[in-house]
């Protein structure tokens, strides 16, 4: 396992499961293929054995069906009383879990026998099913032994009723069976069972005799027996898997002939997959197909890489689990994968006899050397076309681009080495000159890769022989030992050239990976700050362009699951392909099996909750997307998807907040209206009734009532006006009719409108003569002053003065209105401008708290501000600031048409 540590979450859940299990009673199931195999008998026999060993055993319920030998087995076992449940005219007897629980209190560590696990309890019982009673006992810590037939298992119910033509209504969920601590198969060959049936040893209910006879046919019994045995085997297999997981096993337990096919970039992949699929189908086992992407594979042409993807897709369609692993060499990841997934047989294509690099083992040999517990199967592919061994990194890449510059450089470097070494010949030993040539090979390998390095090795040996080894300037060799030198030199040059080139490729791959990781990281960092789908589209497009030189488009699903192209798309998207990818949640377009003629690859954006859209990628011409790039794209797509989902939920949260806010507002509106509208209405109705019912009243009294009716109606009218005005202002239906006018005039008409309202309060208006004209909506601004004056009239004692003053302050005109009342409630100077807020709540003063809110709304649309404060010397001060603007200089004094 290469020392990989188990996932902490998995460990935790395992610990929790074990803790739960420690408190739980143990369940043992006697499992049979059909009635009559002797489950009850076997259970009773086992129970008697346990009793003999000193275990406390009690019979919860046993169905002996009147069989004498079974009955006899129960003789010395204590029985719990059954519960009597009246049903129509008769009394039914059911297992009583309470009796068992009560018994367990006085007899801890009791084993309870409960026959017929699948039994349906009579109506009126605690649980509708007996297995639920058993669960309760288990949860209470009691051990239970029970019996059940295969036909009662939920998942097999349909299959069996198909076989036997008898529908079984009493079923047990499979998890009860799977979670049982122990399952004992009570097996009886069908012939013996039929024999027992003939002898009348099997109980058959009278009314079902015909059906039962149909049931007990040999063919049925054989099928049931096989199902029972196989179901038990499956369970045992699961247990073993769990055991293996829990005990962190290294070795594969060859319990099943599970298959792992390994495919490489050669033509064999397809045949291997087909063969493996057939083998898996014959043996009914799971199979996996794995491709190991080695640096050698990464050097392959796009066509070959596409071929690998195609084979993997094919395998997936045929039902395999497919994976791409990335590693420098194929053997060890394959072994690790096989062990992790408990796959015992590895299937490889048969290697072709061909030239190999020195020291490069065959893949099959490497696997055999590293993991002797795995079977390696070399399958014949019936094709001998010189293709290479699957997954082998050793194979040279014949399609690697011929880089003539590299070969030329190799020649040049060898020549340069010869030129440098020639003058040194006098000082240096020949062995050191050999070193110079080896150095040259290393340089060539590092700079230009494997092919030029090979050339440099051979040329180097030739040049060394020709120019340096005596006799010089001839390929002849005087001393035979130089032949050894040449041999070793060539070998060493080839090996280090190979290794260096490999290192270089890996370093390049690592750099590429790092680069990709960095840009992924950057994208995810950018995405984490994105708040709009448009931003997501922009970030995604940037990433795809930088990484793949690919045009892209982001399509986001709206609430009706219609895809909308986000702005910034650099490709035109075939919407039908995109919609297909979205509807099916699968990739479509270029490089896939669906609509591959489409120039774009469409990846669905799968987020946790649902699909969020589709990203369309159009790679630059000839740039096919390999598996590694596909993985990167998938990562990119899932990042985009989760970001879109996050944005979606931000929207949801925001609209929820808005909804809550408007809900709160609505509630306060309702509260205000229900009080302030109902009060005058109630008095109107009441007063009118008074007039109607109480006959002729004295004139004075009548006047009083009429006056009261009038006041109530006016109050309602004011209220309704306020509500309507606020609604109009809020909805934006109000169009400002701003005109240049003296402030004096607006204040004057407001004062006139308030009239008697001020109730004799002296009003001082101190406006400087040089106050500029203001651009105001006369009606609305009059409303502001009326509301402020009304407020003052409401909240100040009669006879106190109100003072309005104004001055220019910067580019604003500042208007103040002071009263001599109690001032504003402390801490609520801002709140009073909110809708349905009132300075002092518990007052009998009428109003819904809209006056000041209307003032603020009006002042705001004029581009001004309004605020309130309590003056240090007492009384409230409201301050309006309105922009001066540039009043017209022309007053029409000379514009008279004479």
């Amino acid at each position, binding site marked *: 396992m290469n020392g990989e540590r188990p996932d902490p979450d998995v460990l935790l859940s395992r610990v929790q499961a074990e803790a739960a299990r420690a408190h739980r009673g143990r369940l043992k199931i006697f499992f049979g293929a059909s009635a009559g195999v002797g489950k009850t008998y076997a259970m009773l026999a086992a129970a008697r054995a346990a009793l003999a060993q000193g275990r406390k055993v009690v019979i919860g319920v046993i169905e002996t069906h009147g069989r004498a030998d079974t009955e006899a087995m129960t003789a010395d076992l204590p029985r719990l009383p059954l519960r009597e449940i009246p049903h129509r005219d008769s009394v039914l007897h059911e297992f009583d879990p309470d009796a068992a629980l009560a018994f367990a209190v006085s007899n801890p560590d009791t084993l309870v026998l409960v026959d017929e696990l699948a039994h349906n309890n009579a109506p009126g019982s605690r649980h509708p099913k007996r297995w639920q009673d058993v669960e309760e006992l288990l949860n209470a810590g009691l051990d239970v032994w029970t019996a059940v037939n295969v036909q009662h298992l939920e998942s097999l119910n349909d299959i069996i009723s198909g076989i036997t033509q008898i529908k079984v209504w009493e079923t047990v969920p499979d998890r009860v069976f799977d979670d049982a601590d122990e399952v004992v198969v009570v097996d009886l060959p069908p012939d013996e069972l039929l024999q027992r049936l003939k002898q009348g040893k099997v109980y058959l209910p009278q009314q079902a005799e015909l059906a039962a006879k149909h049931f007990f046919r040999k063919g049925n019994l054989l099928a049931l027996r096989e199902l029972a045995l196989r179901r038990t085997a499956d369970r045992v297999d699961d247990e073993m898997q769990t055991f293996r997981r829990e005990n962190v096993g290294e070795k594969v337990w060859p319990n099943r002939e599970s298959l792992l096919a390994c495919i490489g970039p050669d033509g064999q992949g397809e045949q291997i997959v087909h063969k493996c699929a057939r083998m898996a189908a014959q043996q009914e086992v799971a199979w996996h197909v794995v491709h190991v992407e080695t640096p050698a594979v990464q050097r392959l042409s796009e066509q070959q890489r596409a071929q690998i993807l195609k084979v993997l897709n094919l395998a997936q369609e045929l039902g395999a689990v497919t994976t791409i692993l990335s590693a420098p060499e194929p053997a060890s990841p394959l072994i690790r994968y096989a062990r992790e997934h408990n796959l015992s047989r590895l299937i490889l294509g048969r290697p072709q006899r061909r030239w190999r690099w020195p020291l490069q083992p065959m893949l099959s040999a490497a696997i055999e050397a590293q993991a002797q517990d795995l079977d390696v199967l070399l399958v014949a592919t019936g094709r001998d076309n010189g293709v290479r061994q699957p997954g082998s990194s050793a194979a040279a890449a014949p399609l690697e681009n011929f880089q003539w510059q590299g070969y030329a450089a190799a020649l040049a470097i060898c020549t340069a080495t010869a030129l440098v070494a020639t003058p040194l010949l006098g000082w240096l030993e020949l062995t050191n000159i050999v070193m110079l040539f080896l150095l040259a090979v290393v340089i060539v390998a590092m700079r230009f890769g494997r092919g030029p390095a090979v050339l440099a090795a051979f040329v180097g040996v030739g040049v060394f022989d020709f120019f340096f080894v005596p006799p010089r300037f001839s390929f002849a060799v005087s001393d035979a030992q130089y032949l050894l030198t040449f041999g070793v030199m060539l070998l060493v040059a080839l090996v280090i050239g190979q290794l260096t080139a490999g290192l270089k490729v890996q370093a390049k791959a690592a750099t590429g990976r790092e680069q990709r990781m960095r840009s992924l990281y950057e994208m995810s960092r950018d995405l984490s700050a994105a708040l709009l789908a448009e931003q997501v589209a922009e970030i995604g497009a940037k990433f795809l362009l930088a990484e793949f030189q690919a045009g892209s488009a982001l399509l986001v699903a709206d609430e009706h699951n219609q895809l909308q192209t986000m702005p910034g798309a650099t490709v035109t998207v075939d919407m039908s392909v995109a919609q297909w990818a979205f509807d099916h949640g699968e990739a479509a377009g270029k490089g896939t099996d669906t609509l591959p003629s489409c120039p774009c690859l469409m990846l669905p954006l799968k987020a946790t909750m649902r699909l969020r859209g589709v990203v369309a990628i159009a790679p630059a011409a000839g740039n096919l997307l390999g598996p590694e790039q596909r993985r990167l794209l998938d990562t990119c797509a899932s990042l985009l998807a989760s970001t879109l989902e996050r944005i979606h939920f931000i929207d949801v949260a925001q609209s929820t907040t808005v909804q809550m806010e408007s809900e709160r507002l609505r509630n306060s509106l309702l509260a205000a209206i229900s009080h302030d509208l109902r009060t005058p209405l109630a008095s109107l109705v009441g007063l009118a009734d008074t007039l109607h019912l109480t006959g002729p009243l004295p004139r004075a009294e009548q006047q009083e009532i009429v006056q009261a009716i*009038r006041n109530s*109606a*006016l109050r309602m*009218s004011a209220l309704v*006006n306020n509500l*309507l*005005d606020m609604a*109009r202002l809020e909805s934006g239906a109000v169009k400002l*009719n701003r*005109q*240049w*006018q*003296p402030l*004096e*005039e*607006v*204040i*004057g*008409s407001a*004062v*006139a*409108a308030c009239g008697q309202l001020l109730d004799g309060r002296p*009003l001082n*208006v101190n*406006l400087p003569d040089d106050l500029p*004209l203001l651009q105001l*909506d*006369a*009606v609305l601004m*009059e409303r502001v002053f009326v509301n402020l004056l009304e407020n003052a009239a409401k909240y100040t004692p009669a006879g106190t003065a109100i003072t309005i003053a104004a001055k220019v302050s910067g580019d604003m005109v500042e208007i103040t209105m002071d009263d001599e009342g109690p001032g504003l409630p402390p801490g609520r100077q801002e709140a009073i401008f909110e809708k349905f807020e009132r300075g002092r709540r518990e007052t009998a003063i009428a109003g819904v708290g809209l006056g000041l809110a209307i003032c603020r709304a009006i002042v705001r649309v004029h581009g001004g501000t309004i605020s309130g404060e309590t003056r240090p010397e007492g009384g409230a001060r409201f301050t309006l600031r309105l922009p001066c603007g540039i*009043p*017209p200089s*022309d*007053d*029409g*004094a000379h*514009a*008279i*048409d004479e």
Partner: protein
Amino acid sequence: MMERMQSMSELRPSILVVEDEADIRRFVRLSLESEGYDVFEADTIKRGLIDAGTRRPELVVLDLGLPDGDGVDFIRDLRGWSQVPVIVLSARSGENAKISALDAGADDYLVKPFGAGELMARVRAQLRRHSQQTQAGEPVIRFGDVSIDLARRVVERNQQQLHLTPIEYRLLTHLATQPDRVITYRQLLKAVWGPGHMEDIHYVRVHMANLRKKIEASPSMPRHLITEGGIGYRFVSQ
């Protein structure tokens, strides 16, 4: 004034009420009848125009929202052949409707909901103005401590001659000769500056502010040159 009307009991002034709301019509009729007027009712423009032609009322109370059309059309039609005073009833916040009704020739307006007292005051004022207009125009108008001698073109306050600019004089006389009538900005602009300056409403406001400083005791709380917010002005002599 009232005594004069009551003394001519066989010539009780008749008033036409054009209003489609039965309740409002009833309340207007009851209050007018209690003041001694004859009341005719109409609930459509068509009916109203027929009644205005046949009954020859001394005053029309007109609702602006009628089922068969706009009250403004009624006024235009009526003004083609009659100078009978018209008081318009309008819903609140309908400034533009009021202005077009006034521009079309209505004399005053009332905003719903209005009280019976308010209605009566406006009716009396319009009837009084109309009867004064039909009599020969007085050469001298007096209000508060101000007198305007239309013949000599002199305005005096407390027997001191006031120096008004020509514009202020025209403004003042145009308003003062039509007391209790609401004059819109456009009407004033047309009367004082001529038809070329119909949009320069601030002209009126600037000069009105100056005029008030000369005429009114407290210019920000005027008693005679009353602002009708957003609509225009009304001259009140008392």
